[in-house]
Each structure stands twice: as C-alpha cells, then as structure tokens.
C-alpha cells in the first residue's frame, strides 16, 4: 500500500514536472524571440494572439503537421534516433533537480524532487555527456556535409567543455561535501555559493552555454557556414525534438545554476517553487542577453577558451578552494 502511494506520488511528480518543463520550454522560446527582438529594436512575434502569446501553439502545430523528411541516403535508424536522444537526455536530467523543499500533503512528507540520488551530480554529468550522441549521430546519419561538419564540431565542443563544466563544480562539492543536489542546496542555507565561488560560477555559466550550443558557442549549427549544422536535414517534429531539447537544456542549466550557486529554491516572501522559477528565468534571460550581444566565436577561439583558459582556471580554483578549506578547517 505504502509503495503504491509512493509510486502514485512519483507519477504525479513526473507528470507535473514534464508538463511544466514543456510549457516552460515553449514559452522560453517566445520569451527568447521577444526579448531578442527588443534587443535588436524589433518587435518579435506579435501576430499569433495578443503579444504573440499563441506563437508557441502555432509553432507546435506547424512542427507537428509538417512533413517529416528522411533523406534517402541517410542512415535511417540513427537519423530517427538522434533527436530523441537529445530531447530525452535534457528531460531526464530534471529527475535529480530539487525544485523546492519538501511539502507535507495528507500527512505525508513529499520531497519536491523526483529522486534524490547520492551521486546526483555525477548523474547530471553522465546525462550531459550523452547529449553529445544526439548531435554527433544526427549529424552523421543525415549524410550531408553540413550536418557532418556540424556533428563533428558539436562532438568536439561538447566533450571539451564538459571538462571545465565538471571541474568548475568540484569546489561546490568540496563545500557541500556531497554529490546529492539536495545536499548541495541544503549546504547553502546561510549563503548562496555564488558569493564564495564567483570564479566557479563564471566557468560554469560559460561552459553551460557551450554545452547547450548557444550563441556565442553555436558553432555546430552556425547557420551562415553550415546551413543549420547537425539538424540541416531535419524537418517537422524531429526538428522540433532538437528544438525542444535545446530549450529544456536552457531550463536545466538555469535550474542547475540555481541549485549550485543561487541557493536553489531559497528566497524570501515567495513560495520556494516560485523562487526557483524566477531564478531559472533570470538565468535564461541572462543567456538570451548574451546571445543578443556577443558574436559567434571562431572555432580555434572556442577551443582556446575551453582548454587554455577555463580548464586551468578551474584547476586553480579547486586548489585555492582546497587551501582555504584546509585553513578554515
């Protein structure tokens, strides 16, 4: 009986998170387009519904109804698999992200996280590293030179930045003394880690943008050189899955930044979940702002930044944090 209730709660949590994620992703797209539009002195979408509020719906309908084209020379199975990998990977990360303290419902204490893994952080990395496959396989399976180049770029870029992404979080783990995301949030009860780890935050933020392939790191889909990069040959809902993956990733990294550096769901006055959402949105808007401001990096600059700036910086940061921890005790 008990495990059945637990199971039911789990299913409900899964459903709520999934729906929330998808809705948020849809409106993040709108937000990005509107915000980007204003940054560029344009309106952004404003035709579908008031202020373009129905634009996500229109986009969804469009993507669902468009013809799903599979190139004749493509590797059919992998071609169909790749977008699913991307979308699934992005959605799965949220399984360990706590979006609030536990609530008590009908006398039962329900933690607001789908599952609290003791290696939660490693789980996040494991899934993030699998996201590469969607890009690389999609690019390869399309059998198109643009897609292939996009896929290669994507693989190289994501594998490079994963390193700095991981290293940037080591000090956080050292501070929190746990891989569990719940523990990390709890460890920020007094102050958010961004105050003590600004370098770490910076490295993580930059690496996260590179991992999500957002401007200025969108080399795998650089439209003016590669068409649309690894998803050049995709259309309809398969393209939609890539698209969805990208915006869910945006939220994921917003949530991770909130968890690792901004104290998770903590905040005054408002309910924790709202605070969590606000933090995600702030990070997202920051990323959009960056997109609206910075030009795309050159490939060698990208590698240079990853390997020669961020990785050494992250290592130094680890050593420094270690020293400080040793001294403080």
């Amino acid at each position, binding site marked *: 009986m008990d495990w059945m209730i637990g199971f039911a709660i789990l299913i409900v949590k899964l459903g709520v998170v999934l729906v929330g994620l998808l809705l948020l992703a849809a409106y993040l797209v709108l937000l990005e387009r509107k915000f980007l539009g204003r940054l560029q002195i344009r309106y952004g979408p404003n035709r579908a519904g008031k202020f373009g509020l129905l634009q996500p719906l229109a986009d969804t309908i469009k993507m669902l109804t468009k013809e799903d084209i599979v190139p004749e020379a493509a590797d059919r199975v992998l071609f169909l698999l790749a977008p699913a990998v991307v979308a699934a990977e992005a959605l799965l990360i949220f399984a360990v992200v706590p979006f609030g303290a536990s609530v008590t419902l009908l006398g039962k204490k329900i933690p607001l996280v789908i599952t609290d893994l003791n*290696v939660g952080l490693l789980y996040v990395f494991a899934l993030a*590293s699998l996201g590469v496959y969607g890009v690389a*396989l999609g690019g390869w399976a399309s059998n198109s030179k643009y897609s292939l180049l996009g896929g290669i770029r994507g693989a190289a870029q994501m594998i490079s930045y994963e390193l700095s992404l991981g290293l940037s979080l080591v000090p956080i783990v050292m501070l929190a003394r746990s891989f569990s995301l719940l523990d990390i949030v709890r460890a920020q009860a007094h102050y958010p880690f961004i105050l003590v780890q600004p370098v770490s935050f910076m490295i993580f933020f930059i690496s996260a943008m590179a991992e999500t392939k957002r401007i200025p790191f969108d080399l795998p889909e650089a439209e003016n050189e590669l068409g649309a990069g690894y998803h050049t040959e995709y259309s309809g809902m398969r393209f939609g899955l890539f698209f969805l993956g990208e915006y869910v990733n945006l939220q994921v990294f917003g949530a991770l930044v909130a968890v690792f550096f901004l104290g998770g769901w903590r905040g005054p006055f408002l309910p924790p979940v709202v605070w969590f959402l606000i933090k995600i949105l702030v990070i997202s808007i920051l990323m959009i702002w960056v997109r609206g401001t910075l030009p795309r990096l050159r490939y060698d600059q990208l590698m240079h930044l990853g390997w020669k700036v961020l990785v050494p910086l992250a290592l130094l940061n680890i050593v420094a944090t270690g020293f400080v921890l040793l001294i403080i005790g």
Partner: protein
Amino acid sequence: MTVYGAVFYILAGVILIATGLAITRRNLVHSIVYLVISFFGSAMLYYLFGAPLLAALEIIIYAGAIMVLFLFIIMMLRVEPSALRKPTLRQWLPAGVLGLIYVAVAILVVTTDPGSQTILETALARPRVFGRFLFQRYWLSVEIVSFLLLIALVGALYLGKAFVKEGGDQKEDQS
C-alpha cells in the same frame, strides 16, 4: 532467483548481444552505438554490484568521453565500412588451440573453485566511504595514475602537433 538476479541476467544478455553486434558491424558508427548500449548495461551492473560511483564514472568516461572520441575520429576520418578479416588456417589454428585451452582452463577454474559458487550478497559502497578508502590507502597510486594521464595528454598533444609541423615542412618543400 531474486529480482536482482533477474536484472543481472537481463543486463548480461543485453550486454553480450550489444557487444556481439558491435564487434561484427561493418559500419563503425553502428559499432559505436551498440558499444554505448553495452557500456550502459555495464554501468547498470556496476550499480547492481554496489558501486554507484563507478557506474556514474563508467558512463561519464566510457560512454561520454571515450566513445565520443571514437565517434569523433570516425566522423573526422570518414572511415568506410570495413570487412572482417578472413584468417588463414595457419593463423587460425594456433588461435583456436589457445582459445580452447583458455576456455577449458576457465571452465575448470570456475567449476572447481568452491568459492565461485557463492551467491553474492547485495551491498553498497557509498561514494564518501569509497573516496576515503581510496585516498587513505591508495593515494600514491592515484597520483601515479594522474601522472599517467598527464603523460598521455602530452603524448597525444605531441602526436597531433608533430604531424602539423611535418605537414608544414612538406608544404614549404613543395613551394
């Protein structure tokens, strides 16, 4: 048989099938994809055997890094599908004999060793415990291994650089 036993056999089956497919595919990318599935299964086995840290590391390092590296190289070099090597009898015979001996010995060892019949119990090595154990008993080995990694890094960099330099020289010669 417990649930864990069933999980083991299923995972073992998946791993064996995936690996079998991986080593026989002509298309290297397909091999890689099957291998990733195999490593995923291995990661789950690690978890089953009470090593969650290793499970995560298996995915991060094997599936997330090593296989991506392979995929990257395959895509970059545009490797065509390759055939299986057709061994001659002279090559095949010693290999076959040695293989048979290996199999015989393996079966002998596995069946005769009474300890091998023990049914394993579930256990869990928490990352904290594991880390403490590692850095208390084997910190020197960890350092040595990290040196090994550093050397590998330098070596790989050198191999990449050496070619570029040589290529540059060739270009100068041509012009």
